[in-house]
């Protein structure tokens, strides 16, 4: 469904992603691990087509169409959705206003989703991401994803800055949505993996994929040995971890 070939990306004239190749077939959920600054969020914003992320080499294909130079909203129309890690605060724009404006295949289920995420009606009247707590930011982002119900989800750190109770809600909401679904999840801590089944894991180091394999095994290894282990792996060549 999503195929990235030999992708090199520059941000402010600095190379952040180097020659990265990745394929996520339909029905698979892939997990991206990696230290801060390894290029995980950059990869997501490049897949979306954000203007500060310049593709200098390589191609991105979605549903067999070359989307490398496509405007952001056209990619969304093709079926890509996203949960941002740090969305901007939009003063005066209510969450409700945005939900009314987004492409939504599941708008009728809004009531069900707000209940699932424990969000009340007043929350929909608030200015988007203005004075939201960490948990509120994530739940608002996931609510938008659920309403949009895209064919492919890019989920950037749904478990960071979230307390235990909210983590469970977020985990259950994402699990329900992603079961049988397709997408990429970025996680630092791996907490979210307690709630959903991922097909494959990848470790990003220094702008490229250092190794790929069973996500839970990779997580265990990282938790034990840190990313230093992956860096070594990268020196040897592209790792395959089973």
């Amino acid at each position: 469904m999503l195929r990235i070939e030999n992708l090199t990306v520059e941000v402010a004239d600095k190379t952040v992603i180097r020659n990265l190749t990745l394929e996520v077939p339909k029905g698979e959920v892939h997990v991206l691990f990696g230290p801060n600054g390894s290029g995980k969020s950059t990869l997501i914003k490049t897949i979306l087509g954000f203007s500060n992320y310049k593709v200098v080499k390589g191609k991105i294909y979605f549903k067999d169409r070359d989307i490398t130079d496509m405007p952001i909203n056209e990619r969304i129309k093709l079926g890509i959705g996203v949960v941002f890690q740090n969305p901007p605060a939009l003063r005066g724009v209510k969450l409700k206003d945005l939900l009314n404006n987004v492409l939504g295949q599941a708008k009728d289920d809004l009531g069900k989703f707000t209940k699932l995420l424990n969000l009340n009606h007043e929350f929909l009247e608030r200015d988007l991401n203005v004075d939201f707590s960490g948990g509120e930011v994530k739940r608002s982002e996931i609510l938008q994803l659920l309403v949009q119900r895209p064919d492919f989800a890019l989920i950037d750190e749904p478990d960071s800055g979230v307390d235990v109770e909210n983590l469970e809600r977020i985990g259950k909401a994402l699990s329900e949505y992603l079961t049988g679904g397709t997408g990429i999840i970025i996680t630092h801590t791996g907490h979210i993996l307690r709630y959903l089944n991922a097909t494959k894991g990848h470790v990003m180091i220094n702008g490229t994929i250092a190794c790929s394999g069973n996500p839970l095994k990779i997580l265990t290894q990282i938790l034990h040995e840190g990313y230093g282990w992956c860096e070594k792996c990268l020196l040897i060549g592209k790792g395959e971890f089973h």
Partner: protein
Amino acid sequence: MNTSQGENVPTLNLKEFIRGVKKWTPCPLTKLPDDVAKRSLQVGIRPDEGDRSGTYFQMDDVPVFHGIKKGFEGKVEVGSMRQALQRHEWLKDYFWQLIDKSADEFTELAGRDWDDGYFVRILEGQKLTLPLQACLFVATDRFNQNVHNVIVAEPGSDAQIITGCTIHPSVSRGLHIGVTEIYVKRGARLTFTMIHNWAPEFDTRPRTAILVEEGATFVSNYICLSPVRSLQMFPAAHCVGEGARARFNSILYVKDGSYVDVGAKIVLDGKGSRGEIVSRVIATDSAQAYLRGLIVGRSEDSKGHIECRGLLLSNKASIHAIPRLDAEIRGVELTHEAAIGKIAKEQIEYLMARGLSEEEAEALLVRGFMDVSMFGLPAALNEEIRRIVESVSRAH
């Protein structure tokens, strides 16, 4: 009080405008021509008088209608200023008292060639549950309309007034001068909402002064979202009593070649008095916007704040925020914040990542920028202003 401040404001050749136009005959609001009714609706005036406690309607130089809705008689007086001056001997002590007739050429003109205006008096202790409305309508091209209004909110009263000033679709050039003197007496509360809708070759010079007594509150909301050749005003509120409060909110969408210089001045003369000036301005095309705020703290424990946010949508437009704070005694607390910029790319792209086009994203952010809920208005008025802002911003 000086209500004329402003520099670089284009000078007007008063000879370009005409006086002595055809007189309208008084009639019920429902008998007004459709295009007049439609235009007045856009500035918050309900021709069906629905959800309003009283109405004043002036066409060019003739007050064509005034009336008080059933259930509000004996609580409020609404009518022609000229007639009110004949009826109430005491009213001369309120007429040209806060504003000096010789302040500038426009006040002089209004004093010399006076075209009536409205008189509103909310009686002592009366709380009006629905807003009053006043419409000042220019129906003849090139007409120079000079109105002079007086509002007296007697002690302990509570009311909202919506003033809509606009023109007939056939009017392209003209000059509106509105002198308004407002008295908010002890413990009274007055919310004064003024909505303007002019044309690219129309000039306007409102001159407004407000006296706010002990424990009284005055809130002004000013909204102008359509082009104007030039608009300059600097309303001044004098908080004389202990705990008096004044607040000026404005929302301006300045477009085409408009020249807009909108300020507000608050003098905090009462112990513990409060003043706030909050503005939102969007400038596009080759428009120029000046936002002035002046708060003078003269009494202990007084507090004032100026907040100005501007959004530039074009490289040819300009916004100038000019806040000024004068502290004249120890113990006053005056602050200001101003931020002017363009729409952040990050915000547009965030919305595009939900499927909105660039234009839709920008429109949503612009509407959000002009969100009126920050003004803290009563719910119904908030909703009404929001609707007006939305319908106008959608049309742009």
